[in-house]
């Protein structure tokens, strides 16, 4: 279970608060969606869960399965099952996709006390997962994300997620930039990971994604706080009325 309690966050060297007291609980087996206007702090929340150092938590806590993760390094969190699919996946020139995937997969397996995968085992797994996401394995011989289209980068994030077998998946606008078919393929990939042991936080601007990945709950994040929570029908309401209501009471 993910528990976020009264989370206050600012940029390390600046004064302005970005997150101003977030309270959020995502139980195992559930998928929650977060929607909200640009600049409201959605990516910030995602980064802070993953452990990015540019942000400073000034108050509150994040618990994963009952333990605070705030003092853990990003790689330790990954080993504990935290995975963030980035809104803007990074290009890593000079590091082949397969090398990267294999290093990452074996690093988390090792920390989880599992056997590291041999090359044939690893290749078999990659081929299987890549095929289900319609990714050409040849693409993974190229440096990570270099020269990939926007949609290809997003699919490559989901492949990494599938390989790392996380228990807390945070998807930051994974749907933006995907064409209609890719959206379905990626959604199928995410749905395949849905299960009683996993919690998911899906950040999106579009109700459309939530037709594919049907959420248990929808939250509206505006001006650094959760302003409203509801069922999946909340996304439909927002589609009609926009965020005007939440802009008002921000002051």
């Amino acid at each position, binding site marked *: 279970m993910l528990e976020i309690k009264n989370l206050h966050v600012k940029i390390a060297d600046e004064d302005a608060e970005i997150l101003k007291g977030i309270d959020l609980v995502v139980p195992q087996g559930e998928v929650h969606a977060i929607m909200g206007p640009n600049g409201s702090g959605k990516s910030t929340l995602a980064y802070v869960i*993953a*452990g*990015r*150092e*540019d942000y400073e938590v000034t108050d509150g806590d994040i618990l994963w399965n009952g333990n605070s993760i705030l003092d853990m*390094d*990003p*790689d330790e*969190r*990954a*080993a504990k099952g935290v*995975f*963030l699919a*980035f809104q803007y*996946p*990074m290009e*890593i*020139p*000079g*590091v082949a996709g397969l*090398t*990267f995937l294999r*290093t*990452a*997969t074996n*690093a*988390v397996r090792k*920390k989880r006390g599992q056997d590291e995968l041999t090359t044939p085992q690893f290749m078999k797994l990659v081929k299987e997962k890549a095929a289900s996401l319609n990714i050409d394995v040849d693409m993974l011989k190229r*440096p990570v994300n270099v020269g990939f289209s926007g949609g290809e980068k997003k699919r490559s994030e989901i492949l*990494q997620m599938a390989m*790392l077998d996380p228990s807390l998946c945070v998807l930051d606008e994974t749907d933006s930039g995907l064409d209609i078919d890719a959206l379905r393929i990626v959604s199928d990939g995410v749905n395949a990971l849905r299960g009683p042991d996993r919690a998911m936080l899906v950040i999106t601007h579009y109700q459309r994604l939530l037709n594919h990945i049907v959420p248990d709950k929808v939250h509206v994040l505006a001006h650094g706080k959760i302003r409203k929570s509801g069922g999946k029908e909340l996304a439909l309401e927002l589609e009609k009325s926009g965020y005007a209501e939440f802009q008002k009471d921000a002051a």
Partner: protein
Amino acid sequence: MSVAVMKTKTETALVDGFGEIADTLPGGGSVKSARAAALARFAGNGLPHRRIEEWKYTDLKGLMKEALPVVVDGESKTTIADVIVAMGAIGRLEVPRFVLVNGHYRKELSNLDGLNGVSVAPFAQALSSDDAAAALELREEDRGSDAVLALNSAYATDGAVIDVASGSNVDAPLLVVHVRAGPTPRRSVGRNQIRVGEGAAITIVEMFVAVPGSAADGQMNTATEVQVGAGATVDHVKVTTDLGQVTHLANWLVDMHGNATYRAFQYTAGVGLARNQVRATFKGEGVKLDISGAFLARNSEHIDTTLFVDHAVPEGESRELFKGVLDDNARGIFQGKVVVRPDAQKTDGKQMAQALMLSETCEFDSKPELEIYADDVVCGHGSTSAAIDEDLLFYLRARGIPLDEARALLIQSFIGEAIEKVQHEGVREALMIEAEAWLAARSKTNK
């Protein structure tokens, strides 16, 4: 006008020491007088210092604190096993090798089997031929200004003279291994000559290495003259991994004839003070030149790469890519001068120098210099120096890769982009292993 400058102790020793060993250096009367003339040229100018533009970042006069004695005969304890160990990862390649220890050819450590269309002979032997003085004497344009080259001509003891017959396609890379050995600090002075006939193809790897347990200190002055025949393809690699506080001064003087392809790669790591100078001249049209390299330096090491690319004729292509990893108080220098002469229309030149800075106290000086006198040319250059990208580091760590490993992966990928330039697979992979070993030594000392 040259201002009279006081001679340093080192300069005095370099001049006075010559008389003591002149008679033991190879070569008869004409060679002896050519050596004496070279020494006189050196004595006139002394060591280059920072007020000479090309040496402004490497003040040899200040940095070279002593002149170690030149080894007049090789030391004989070194075994084949020592040589193989000294060569590191490349030692595992089973390819022909020409081995010199402390500046002298050692037949029993060499193995030149299986070389077809190539003749390899010791430079000392060339110095006893009829035309010996000509063999020693450098070309006018190289002779005049360079003090390090003048010292090379005065003191050169031995080296490899490689002739590749026209049309020969030599598969295996030929290694020329300069080994430093023995507990006493010494100076070695080597001269290599490579002549590749028309349409021939060969890979030559020059190595500068030390047998483990050798003196921490040492000096090397090496010069290699290269003639790349028309239509020939030459891959010329230099691997300098000598350990300890050695002073390594190297010159490559390269002439490239019509439609030749010359690819140079220089790997330098773990050297106290290195100056790698390359002068490459386009002698015929349609030549393709690629000079690349990787340098890795820590502690107070100082690695200087100075290129002089001379587009003297039309339709030449030149590419330079140098990448350096600098740590602690290390200093990296890249000077890339490209001259496009008035006749050299349709020249296409690109240059890039990049440094990855691992500490706050390391320094990278980059000085690209384009002198273009022709109007129909495409030339560009760039230079960057940056620390490891924190965003990339976070991305890797968010995927579960621990900090040290993530750093190593990013440094490797940075330097790997340069090492990728090496065409020969075995050599390329061996250099990647060398770079990884250098990095591994880093994370060990940081713990």
